[in-house]
């Protein structure tokens, strides 16, 4: 489908570009108000313990404000409010006498300077009743004899017992799996394990709480959802939502780390309420690692296929290591299944998903919400089956993948819709040519120190979590669009832009719908009290859900502009007779009648509506998407393995994406670059390892020991090719779908399939560090030293 757009699909500079390149943009970390106190958190030095008492006397003597669990409502909560209450598992306390991971907040102090606050925090004495041996392995934790990390937690409004440290579970069966495996000619079964990755967003989490005159709270914080932050604080402290205002502040990256309200927010609120003064907490990098990292995934997957390459059955066992507290692993059990089911037509499926507590930093979503992990495992297995059957891996994918017209499980079993746009064949076939797939050779032919290999990985992510039926996931948004008195517009939304340019996409969508230049649309500063509810910028929903909401608002505003124009012109009968466009001579947006000299500027209409007391032209829209379509991605990657050092280098990348209509093609490219590089880190370096005895993160959480890829590790612009499929998503704004997570999801699989093609070795445990490569080469008898 080819549609000619005025602004969509064209490169336009982002609105916040100048503020960013000049360093003038203020993030939460940069905010200060007069008289504010600096808060510091006192953390448990043990991974699993009972506290007898906390002695704060010395800190108080120093003049610090101190809060302990005794000062704070002891209500269990879950910091992530994206699921409906009935399936929200609550086991976290703002401060606790029973720390369950090393670094869990047990008390907090506030003082007039950072130095004083740090000193006061160091003066808080914790007396322990009992210190337990930490349980770090989920397979250990589920044994009946293992001590219980939690005894009772809340599911919705009900208390439930925790048995065998199982936080949540989800099973699913479809068809007859046993028969499916009986019918198979080939069965492949493997276990997989991921690292415990950390988001490493560049801005560490921060919060500033200001008590307004009259007792209202204003909160500035690093969040992907201002509304859920407000709701949570309201629930925890029994303060009406109308007395809390959370401001949307630019955020220095997120990648899922702030879907939940970070632990420091309620702590800062407690300190500010006690101090009756503004309080800021800004994490050090080492503290940031303690306020969530990713889950660890343990998979066992079995796939059966016939000789002709048709799949007959699949079994998927998913054991999630959730850490010490639930940040909703329950929906992750659902999405893991959703990613798995929506990859290929397995026909018969058995799924067992178990989320298990351990004494580690609580796991939360990290870009992809399980999709990079599931797609790595599935795409590895599909390659193995292809090899076993002697079928080209591309053909096997084309034969079995879930595509147009088929049922797609967006975010779990309660979020389903039919696929309406699908660029997979185009991307697989075009990419294959560009990378020169047919020349990739077999690993057995590759000799010498440096060996190159080519791999493929195919996957997707959803565009949000909407659907025709209201399920377990909350997904709707809202916005206000109003025409100002001079013909400019204010666009007001709670939706956060993490840096990907989501709000710029909205502006272009509004501009396109109205036929006016994007420069006329202002992205208004936003807060909870001035915006309708938006659940969160997550699940790659920003452009697809928020963009469609903006388009609908623009549609209403357009209608009202035309009605006002009719009132001014007098002779025109109905709005359909009018057009809106940009007049190059007047350098203004105008309303006109084709083939006549009737022409009014938008500014004139706005001014007249104001001067003649017609009222404000505007729209308020609350919108839920009835679909969560997949954005497909296909990665072809060429790598070079140094068989002496175990180091891997990217040689060429072909990143293919089906985002429907690309609203901002350069930002689409940027997402793919970033997604690939994040996948590179996931594949080769990223893991927060724990000391098995103490349960402390090795290297004390200093990022010297958490290596993300640097400029030296990535491909050059010439080595990175982007293909955008020519598709159109009928349910999206001007045909658009989401991207942020799809940009990364199947890249790890492609990278490691390329490593296999280079050295003939498969790795089932991430990250694949050089020592693992050397060890494997040694085992294979191919180490040359």
């Amino acid at each position: 489908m080819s549609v000619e757009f005025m602004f969509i699909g064209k490169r336009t500079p982002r609105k916040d570009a100048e503020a960013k390149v000049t360093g003038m943009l203020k993030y939460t970390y940069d905010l200060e108000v007069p008289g504010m106190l600096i808060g510091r958190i006192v953390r448990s030095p043990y991974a699993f313990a009972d506290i007898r008492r906390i002695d704060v006397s010395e800190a108080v003597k120093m003049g610090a404000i101190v809060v302990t669990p005794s000062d704070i409502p002891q209500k269990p909560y879950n910091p992530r409010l994206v699921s409906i209450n009935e399936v929200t598992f609550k086991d976290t306390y703002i401060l606790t006498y029973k720390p369950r991971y090393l670094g869990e907040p047990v008390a907090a102090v506030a003082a007039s300077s950072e130095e004083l606050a740090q000193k006061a925090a160091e003066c808080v004495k914790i007396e322990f009743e009992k210190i337990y041996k930490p349980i770090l392995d989920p397979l250990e934790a589920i044994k009946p004899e293992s001590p219980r990390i939690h005894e009772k937690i809340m599911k919705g409004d009900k208390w439930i017992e925790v048995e065998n440290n199982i936080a949540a579970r989800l099973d699913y069966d479809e068809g007859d799996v046993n028969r499916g495996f009986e019918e198979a000619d080939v069965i492949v079964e493997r276990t997989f394990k991921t690292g415990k990755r950390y988001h490493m967003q560049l801005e560490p989490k921060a919060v500033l709480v200001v008590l307004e005159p009259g007792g209202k709270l204003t909160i500035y914080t690093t969040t992907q959802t201002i509304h859920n932050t407000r709701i949570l604080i309201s629930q925890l402290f029994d303060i009406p939502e109308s007395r809390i205002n959370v401001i949307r502040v630019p955020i220095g990256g997120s990648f899922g780390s702030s879907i939940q309200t970070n632990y420091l927010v309620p702590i800062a609120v407690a300190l500010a309420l006690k101090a009756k003064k503004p309080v800021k907490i800004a994490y050090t990098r080492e503290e940031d690692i303690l306020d969530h990292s990713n889950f660890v995934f343990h998979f066992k997957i079995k796939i059966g296929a016939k000789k002709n390459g048709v799949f007959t059955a699949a079994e998927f066992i998913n054991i999630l290591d959730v850490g010490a507290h639930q940040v909703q692993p329950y929906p992750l059990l659902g999405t893991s299944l959703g990613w798995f089911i929506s990859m290929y037509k397995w026909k018969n499926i058995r799924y067992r998903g178990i989320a298990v507590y351990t004494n580690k930093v609580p796991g939360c979503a990290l870009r992809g919400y399980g999709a990079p992990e599931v797609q790595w495992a599935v795409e590895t297995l599909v390659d193995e089956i292809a090899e076993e059957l002697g079928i080209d891996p591309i053909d096997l994918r084309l034969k079995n993948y879930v595509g147009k017209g088929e049922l797609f499980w967006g975010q779990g079993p309660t979020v389903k819709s039919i696929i309406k746009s699908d660029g997979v064949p185009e991307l697989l076939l075009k990419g294959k040519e560009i990378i020169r797939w047919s020349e990739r050779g077999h690993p057995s032919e590759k000799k010498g120190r440096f060996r190159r290999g080519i791999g493929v990985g195919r996957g997707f992510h959803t565009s949000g979590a909407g659907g025709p039926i209201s399920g377990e996931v909350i997904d709707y948004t809202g916005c206000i669009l109003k025409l100002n008195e001079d013909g400019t517009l204010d666009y007001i939304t709670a939706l956060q832009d993490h840096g990907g340019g989501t709000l710029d996409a909205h502006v272009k969508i509004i501009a396109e719908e109205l036929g006016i230049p994007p420069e006329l649309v202002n992205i208004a500063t936003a807060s909870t009290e001035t915006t309708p509810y938006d659940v969160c910028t997550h699940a790659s929903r920003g452009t697809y859900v928020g963009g469609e909401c903006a388009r609908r608002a623009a549609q209403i505003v357009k209608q009202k502009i035309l009605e006002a124009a009719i009132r001014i012109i007098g002779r025109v009968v109905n709005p359909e007779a009018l057009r809106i466009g940009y007049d190059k001579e007047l350098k203004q947006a105008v309303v006109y009648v084709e083939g006549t000299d009737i022409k009014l500027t938008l500014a004139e209409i706005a001014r007249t509506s104001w001067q003649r007391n017609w009222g404000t032209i505007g729209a308020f829209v609350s919108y839920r998407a009835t679909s969560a379509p997949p954005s497909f991605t296909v990665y072809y990657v060429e790598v070079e393995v140094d068989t002496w050092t175990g180091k891997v280098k990217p040689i060429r990348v072909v990143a293919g994406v089906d985002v429907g209509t690309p609203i901002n093609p350069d930002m689409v490219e940027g997402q793919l670059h970033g997604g690939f590089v994040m996948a590179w880190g996931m594949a080769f370096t990223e893991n927060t390892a724990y000391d098995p005895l103490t349960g402390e993160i090795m290297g004390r959480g200093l990022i010297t020991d958490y290596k993300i890829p640097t400029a030296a590790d990535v491909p050059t612009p010439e080595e990175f090719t982007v293909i955008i499929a020519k598709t159109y998503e009928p349910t999206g704004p001007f045909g658009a779908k989401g991207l942020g997570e799809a940009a990364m999801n199947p890249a790890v699989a492609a990278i490691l399939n390329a490593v296999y093609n280079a050295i003939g070795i498969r790795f089932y445990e991430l990250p694949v560090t050089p020592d693992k490569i050397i060890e494997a080469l040694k085992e294979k008898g191919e180490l040359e030293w």
Partner: protein
Amino acid sequence: MCINMVKVAFKVNGEHIELDVSPRELLINTLRSKLGLTSVKYGCGIGECGACTVLVNGEPVLACLTLTVDVNSKDIITLEGLSKNGLTDIQRAFIEEGAIQCGYCTPGFIIMAEYMLREVPNPTISDVKEYLKGNLCRCTGYINIFRAVLKAAKSRVSR
């Protein structure tokens, strides 16, 4: 606390500054909290991420690892100073090439790119990687940053 304060005098973005600071005060805190220069970003505090890079006497320095007393009588340039007279070619190239996403690491990259182009006016892609490998970015995958820096270099050389 009775720490002897030390008088320091230095230039920041062309302005003379005189301050009494604790001998252990870090330059990042002086610049951000006392002088309001928040383009100098905190990212790690241990010299790993490069977000707090500033120029001291023309050399790139990590403000989180530098004591304020150490810049006594020196000349400091932050991003605020670099763009005093409008956007530089590097800043324009960052905008044009989509080299910005969340923007938090951007000031450090622009300072480092400025330093590089003064040292190596006609850099190769390997030079760019070498000079920028101490600055971490989690959003862009660096590729559009390379494009932007190479583009700025080209425009500077042809001027």
